């Protein structure tokens, strides 16, 4: 497979992982808030709501992840060449900061104070950033497998 196409595929997989994980996390934070207010939350309702969010919310989150990753992953790749020992740390930070920056940008540009529900709390924000890190780490891992000499 040509290297550019392969990079694009890995980028897509990284976005997919971060978006799916972020969506599942967002749903669980939201349902926990409702549960705290006394709403019943049987497993079936939880699964159904998560599935609806995967259909309805994940495309929105994916756009933010793409916006962040477009800058963060090339930057992390470049820095990793300069500091090979710090490769995993760099990608972990890049993924997290990419999601944080994209959400901050959306909140600044859009009329509502906070676009994504889970982004309203520190725990939710850190969780979504961790999903960004997972996506970025997947990208780093796949790139390393295909170009082991670089590590």
């Amino acid at each position, binding site marked *: 497979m040509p290297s550019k196409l392969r990079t694009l595929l890995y980028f897509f997989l990284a976005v997919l992982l971060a978006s799916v994980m972020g969506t599942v996390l*967002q*749903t669980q934070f*939201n*349902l926990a*808030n*409702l549960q*705290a*207010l*006394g*709403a019943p939350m049987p497993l079936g*309702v939880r699964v*159904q*709501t998560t599935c*609806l*969010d995967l259909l*309805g*919310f994940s*495309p*929105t*989150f994916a756009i933010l992840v793409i916006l962040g990753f477009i800058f963060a992953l090339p930057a992390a790749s470049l820095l990793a060449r300069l500091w090979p020992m710090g490769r995993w740390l760099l990608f972990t930070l890049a993924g997290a900061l990419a999601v944080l920056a994209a959400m901050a940008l959306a909140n600044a540009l859009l*009329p*509502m*104070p*906070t*676009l*994504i*529900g889970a982004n*309203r709390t520190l725990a939710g924000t850190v969780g979504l950033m961790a999903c960004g890190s997972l996506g970025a780490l997947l990208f780093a891992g796949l790139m390393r497998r295909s170009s082991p000499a670089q590590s």
Partner: protein
Amino acid sequence: MLNTSRALLLFGLLGSSLAHAMDYRIETVTEGLEHPWSLAFLPDGRMLVTERVGRLRIIEQDGSLNPQPVGGVPEGFVAAQAGLMEVLLDPAFASNQQLYLSYAYGTTQANNTRLSKARLVDGQLQDVQVLFTAQPAKSGAAHYGGRMAWLPDNTLVLTLGDGFDWREQAQNTSNHLGKIVRLNRDGSAPKDNPLVGQSGAAAEIYSLGHRNVQGIVYDNQLQRLYSHEHGPRGGDELNLIEPGNNYGWPLITYGIDYTGAQISPYTELPGLQQPLLHWTPSVAPSSLTIYRGALFPEWQGDLFASTLAERSVRRIRLQDGKLAGEDVLFEELEERIRDVRVGPDGALYLLTDSADGRLLRVVPSQ
């Protein structure tokens, strides 16, 4: 085929226009209002209009806008949805010149809705007094509610919002986010408010579980209090408000979040009130009135809700207090409508929401 379709479309449009033309005529009364929000009719035939940017304006009997804004308006917080909102005359305004203003106060980091009263004397507000400040102060500039109505016992209901980021607080009875509050004319909480005596509850609360309530009207004839509120994406609601009732936000809703995320898996839960109707997709209802006037006999007792997103006024037909259908009016204006009122002359008055907003008067075409 294309020509036939065009002809049918033209015929349909003409038919629709003719039907409208036969029913009513829309006149421009006043132009040059900056995001007008609320209209009140003074006993002498003049009108008061709030502009969200913080000005209170007088419209003279001939419709001309007094170039000098009313002085002494309390300074508010103006940003995004925040600013000066409703002006409401005291039931005894003719003798005491008192009026009530709702507005956002504070800063971007700490703000909420506030209610003040003042006397209007010679184009100036005097004796301005803060009556109520919604708690807690929160950040952001969204969801303030801000509409008011008098109940028959001369207590006042004031609608509030959840501040957008604090939707779960609409279920918390210890604060004012996402509530409708009922106040005495001096700002105190009436002793017969539904949560008075309940440990930790805010005594001003009249109903809870609201998102952003921007329409409220009391029907004196049927003794009913109606309100509507903005849903998120879908789920705008018309509610029949009764003291102490919980209207469910965010535990139940017919809307979803702007991101496409589910707000709640539920549209119904025990103990939570169902709306009389919900608008999905959203129309963004911005004010509510009930028609009791002489000019449009067929509109008697119907509710009228102005809308921002749909750029219309919804006529909600009621028969014996029950919903009997809806009509979408004034779409031909293609303008966001911020306020709808019934004037003392029986005409319907509209405020269009823009930087160059207008006051419009709807009268029968013949």
